[in-house]
């Protein structure tokens, strides 16, 4: 029995999941330290955060809404990383996806399912082109994808800011595009919510009504399906086999007859398409329009962190995305409740990533602790 526990322990500590969980714990520890230094009670702050996430069904709903785009951009970055490519451009691919979804959602008039499919489909194509471009430039001219995707991010940002000034697309001076048609929205029960029966229901059902008060939408379902799809492509298809081979060892892949350059382009096309979906779902489910951006919104960049914490897997991205959503949403509440700076949350997230990136350091800490315990 004792042996079993030992084996389990070593498996846990040597596996990536264990290390990630320890990293998360260390992130919280450091966050507590900083709160303490700033003169706040960390236990109280964490209690506020925890309450801010779980105490009402509305909060949980918001966490999921926050997490949805992060999960998908996380999947996008993870997919490229598995082929050995660092897609910093999820941000830009997200933006072009959002533009396409907003445009398709506003200009077309179609039945619900068709309209959503069209908007998402166009966003996928836009994101795929944006990502594929970086892949192509790398394959053809050897330009590193980090450089090209950073450039493409800025192009996407200014493209977005330009299209909202077009009179056909947005009312002048507001810096916003027109809202998309109701048939392009993926919010759940949005019409029924504002009907008399709906209002009545919300008033009488505390928990469900609470959820319906939020812009609850089908995006999360998309995110889960996409995570499964990513897992399936990577592990069960010949395409995924090729991409992983190239990611691990392009030399051996090439010698085995795999077209390495083509794989790079494919990988970036798929990665970009995923990020494009993230942008589309945000428009179709939450914002319903795009607005002038003063700076990058950061969904794509956060996707890098989500992917890293999630160990570049589908399931990992879902969990890491939810963690991120929780911290971002719940963490914002310490400002109101305690006047504590929400920046602490970003420090915590940064710390977690730092530790995840340093599995050796954590193992070292663990062995030292173990030796101490023995003595």
């Amino acid at each position, binding site marked *: 029995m004792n042996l079993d526990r030992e084996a389990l322990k070593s498996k846990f500590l040597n596996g990536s999941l264990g290390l990630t969980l320890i990293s998360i714990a260390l992130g919280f520890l450091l966050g507590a330290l900083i709160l303490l230094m700033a003169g706040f009670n960390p236990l109280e702050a964490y209690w506020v955060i925890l309450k801010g996430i779980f105490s009402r069904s509305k909060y949980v709903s918001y966490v999921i809404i926050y997490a949805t785009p992060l999960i998908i951009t996380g999947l996008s970055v993870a997919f490229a990383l598995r082929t050995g490519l660092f897609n910093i451009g999820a941000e830009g691919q997200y933006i072009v996806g959002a533009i396409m979804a907003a445009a398709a959602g506003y200009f077309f008039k179609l039945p619900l399912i068709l309209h959503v499919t069209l908007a998402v489909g166009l966003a996928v194509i836009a994101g795929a082109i944006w990502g594929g471009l970086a892949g192509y430039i790398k394959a053809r001219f050897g330009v590193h994808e980090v450089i090209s995707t950073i450039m493409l991010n800025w192009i996407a940002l200014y493209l977005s800011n330009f299209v909202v000034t077009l009179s056909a697309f947005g009312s002048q001076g507001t810096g916003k595009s027109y809202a998309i048609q109701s048939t392009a929205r993926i919010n759940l029960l949005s019409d029924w919510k504002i009907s008399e029966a709906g209002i009545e229901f919300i008033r009488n059902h505390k928990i469900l009504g609470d959820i319906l008060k939020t812009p609850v939408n089908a995006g999360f379902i998309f995110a889960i399906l996409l995570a499964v799809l990513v897992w399936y492509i990577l592990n069960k298809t010949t395409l995924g086999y090729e991409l*992983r081979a190239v990611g691990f060892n392009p030399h051996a892949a090439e010698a*085995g007859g795999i077209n390495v350059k083509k794989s790079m382009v494919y990988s970036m096309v798929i990665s970009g398409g995923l990020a494009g979906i993230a942008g589309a779902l945000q428009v179709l489910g939450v914002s319903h329009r795009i607005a002038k951006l003063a700076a990058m919104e950061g969904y794509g960049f956060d996707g890098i962190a989500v992917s890293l914490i999630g160990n570049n897997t589908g399931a990992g991205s879902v969990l890491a995305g939810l963690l991120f959503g929780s911290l971002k949403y719940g963490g914002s509440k310490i400002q109101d409740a305690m006047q504590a700076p929400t920046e602490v949350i970003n420090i915590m997230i940064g710390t977690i990533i730092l530790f995840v990136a340093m599995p050796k350091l954590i193992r070292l800490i663990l062995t030292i602790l173990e030796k101490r315990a023995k003595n």
Partner: protein
Amino acid sequence: MHLTTIDFSQKSVEMIDVVKKFGDFVANDRIRLSVHKGEVHSLLGENGAGKTTLVNCLYGLYRPTEGRILIKGREVTISDPTVAIQLGIGMVHQHFMLVEPFTVTQNIILGRETTKMMGILDLSTAERKVAEISEHYGLAINPRDKIEDISVGSQQRVEILKALYRGAEILILDEPTAVLTPPEIQELVGIIRNLTQEGKSIIIITHKLHEIKQVADYCTIIRRGKYIDTVEVDKVTEMDLASMMVGREVSFAVEKTEQEKGELALAIQDLVVKDNRGIPAVNGLDLELHKGEILGIAGVDGNGQSELVEALTGLRKVDSGVISLHGKEITGSTPKDVINKWNIRTIPDDRQKRGLVLEFDVAENLILETYHDVPFSNRGVLNMEEIYAYGDSCTEKFDIRPSNPYLVAKSLSGGNQQKVIIAREVNNDPEVLIASQPTRGLDVGAIEYVHTALVNQRDRGKAVLLISFELDEVMNVSDRIAVIFEGKIVGVVDAKDVDEHEIGLMMAGGTR
């Protein structure tokens, strides 16, 4: 010659009952090793016997689970390589640890840069010192050459130079001859002699018995992690060493029946292929390979062998000339066409770089060239059951150990990694099998295995092209021998009626 430089009054290294465990696996089980000043001590054992683990303990890469290590009579704890270097221990790894775009000097001073005032790099002083050491020990290294531009043999000498530069008194060489040509090996032997004359101690890991006979004073044999014996090399035969190493009698000769060569399989006419610098490395090469024969290409490293193989496999652009298979031109085919359409398979010289995806498991590596075909996949979807069933059958048929297709290739020993590659390349019964340095770094047992696989392929009436820097291998295995020099074939001879000196002369540019 042997024993002359040894100072028996001083022990440089003493390892006493060293045990190293990885989990439950005992890699070293109470191993003893004792090396005097000025001694060349060889560590002999099969792949995975635990030689490298032992020297890694000495170099501070691993911490021994039990046992003691004494350096110059003083008990020490070597916690990491920095400590080892301070103690005067240097190591030349089998896989070189060099930064390719850097010059020799830049590589040597890496981590111990000589500086002028304010931390400004002082390259010229370093260069002078490197040149001095190089001259002193006869290493023939130009400190300003870039690593990527010099031959493997020179790269190895740079590694030796690096260790000497850092004041090594005890030098560990991990399979130093695995990548060297016969002349380079002779040079290395000379260098080793110079080193011992200066009172350095050398620990040399190798499985090549005649080299041990030639260069080592003492030999410690390890088998499956256990200490077997330490012998004075002059008092034993190669046969004795081999049977101590594998624990049974072994045969050195390649068993091969006479066979008439068949019709023309692969023909190469006036081939020109440029290397990375744009200089023609293969320069007007003609070669004919027939069915049912093993054609060996003998030559010193860097005479166009790797470029020739890359051109044949489609990995490198052919500048001019014609490659044809069974009379059909296949020049400029993609790697995929070479493999799948023309059924030309290759055992690459660098198995970790070109041969395997180390992070993939054995079964995944076995289908690297056929994953797109039924039954391994159907319309783009992999069939896991078939893939692992195939993995199972291959591990059994080709004796890949441990026999588990789910193991990552990284965790296999070098010999078993090579078996995975051979299984992949041979199991599809290729028309032409190109074997480039197929026994590099392998032990006697594994070499026997590889050679048998090549001969089997020939006996089945297929063509085999063997490229090797080891003349013994070329002469033992081939039916005909083509000598390559400066990108051309300078002579083709029948393996039966040729002697080593004659080929050696041609390899150095002389004609028959």
